[in-house]
C-alpha cells in the first residue's frame, strides 16, 4: 500500500496524479512543445536539446510574425490617415486602447512592444521547460536572466 505519511506526502501524491493526467492529455498533441519526461529519460541528451530548441524556435517565429503584422497594419493606417503621430511609443495600456480605436500609433507601439517581449517570452518558455525537466541548475540560471529583464522593465517604468 502506498499511503502518504504526512500532509506534504498527500500533496505530492495529488501533484503526481495531476501531472500524470496532464501528461496523458498532452501526449495526444504529438507536436506539442513538451514531451513526456519518462520517455525523455530513455533518449539521448541530444534529443532533449532538440526539444528545447524547438520550443524556442516556435516562440521566436510567432513573436516576429505578430509584431511585423502589427507594424504593417500601423503603417497602413498611418498612410491612409496621414495624421501627425506622437514621437514616442505609448505605454502598453494606452497602446492597446489606441489600437482598439484603430489608430496608427496604437498598432505601431504594440508592434514594437511585441518585438521586445518576444525574447522575454522565450526566456519564460525555456524556464518552464527546465522546471518540467527537473533541471534545477538551468532553471535557476534562466530564472536569473528573467529577473534581470524584469528589473529593467521596472526601471523603465519607474
Amino acid at each position: 500500500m502506498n499511503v502518504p505519511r504526512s500532509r506534504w506526502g498527500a500533496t505530492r501524491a495529488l501533484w503526481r496524479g495531476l501531472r500524470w493526467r496532464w501528461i496523458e492529455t498532452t501526449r495526444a498533441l504529438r507536436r506539442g512543445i513538451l514531451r513526456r519526461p519518462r520517455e525523455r529519460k530513455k533518449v539521448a541528451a541530444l534529443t532533449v536539446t532538440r526539444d528545447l530548441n524547438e520550443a524556442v524556435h516556435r516562440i521566436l517565429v510567432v513573436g516576429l510574425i505578430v509584431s511585423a503584422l502589427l507594424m504593417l497594419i500601423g503603417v497602413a493606417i498611418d498612410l491612409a490617415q496621414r495624421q501627425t503621430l506622437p514621437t514616442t511609443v505609448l505605454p502598453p495600456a494606452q497602446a492597446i486602447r489606441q489600437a482598439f480605436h484603430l489608430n496608427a500609433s496604437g498598432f505601431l507601439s504594440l508592434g514594437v512592444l511585441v518585438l521586445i517581449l518576444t525574447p522575454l517570452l522565450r526566456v519564460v518558455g525555456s524556464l518552464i521547460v527546465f522546471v518540467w525537466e527537473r533541471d534545477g541548475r538551468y532553471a535557476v540560471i534562466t530564472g536569473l536572466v528573467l529577473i534581470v529583464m524584469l528589473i529593467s522593465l521596472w526601471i523603465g517604468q519607474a
Partner: protein
Amino acid sequence: MFVLIFFIAIVVGILGSMLGIGGGVLLIPVFTLFLGIPIKTAIGATIISVIATSSAAGVVYVGRGLTHTRLGMVLEVATTLGALAGGITAVLISPRALQGIFGVVLLYVIYSMGRLPKEEAAVAPTGVMDTTFMDPLTGAEVTYGVRNMPLGFGASFLAGNVSGLLGIGGGIIKVPVMVLVMGIPLKAAIATSNFMIGVTAATSALIYYGRGYIDPQIAIPTALGILVGAQLGPRLGGRMRTMTLKRLFQGLLVVFAVQMLWKSLLGG
C-alpha cells in the same frame, strides 16, 4: 522621412548580412550625422532592429541545431546584467559622451573586422557542456565542449554592456572570444551569439521603451528595412567580392568614427 529611413535600413541590412555585422554600427552614425536624429533616439531605433534581426536569424539557426542553447542561457546572465547597466548609463549620461564612446567602439569594430577568425582553434569535448552539431557544409558531426568559462562570462558582460549603451548587437565582441578563448566552432559561436543578442537587446530596450527613447516613426522603418535587407543580402552576396566590400565598409566606418569623435569633443 519614413520612406527615407526604410530605404537606408534596407541598404544597411543588405551590407550587414553580407559582412556578418549588425546594422547598428552603420545606422547610428548615418542617423545622427546626416539625418540629425538625437543619438538616444537613434540608439532606441537600432536596438529594436537588433531584436528583429536576432529573432529572424534565430529562427534559421535554432532550426538547424547550430545554437548551443544551454551555453547561451548561462552567458545570457552576463549579457543581460551588462545590458541593464548599459541601458541605465545610456539614459543618464550626456549625448556628447555617448557619441564619444560610440566613436571609440567604432574604432575597435574596424580593427576587429579584418581579424575575425577564419578557422577555429582545436575543437574538442572538454566535459563542460559538451554538445554535437552537424556542420551544414560538410555534413560531418562536430562534438565540442566549453573552455575558459569565467573569461567568456566576463566578455559577455562587456558585450551586453556595449549593446545596452550603444544599441548594437555586441556579436563583434562575443564571437571572437567564444571562438578563440572558449573553443567554440565558428558557426556555433555565431548562432549562439545571435541567440543571446535578442534577449540582451530586449533587456535594454525595455528601459528605452519606458523612458520614451523609442520613436515609432524611426524605429519601425528601421526594423522593417533591416529585416527586408537581411533577406536580400545573402542572395546578392555571391555577385560581389566580399573583400572589396569589407575594405569599403571599413573605410566608411573610419570616416564615421572620426566624425563622431570630432562632434563629441567639440560639441555641435
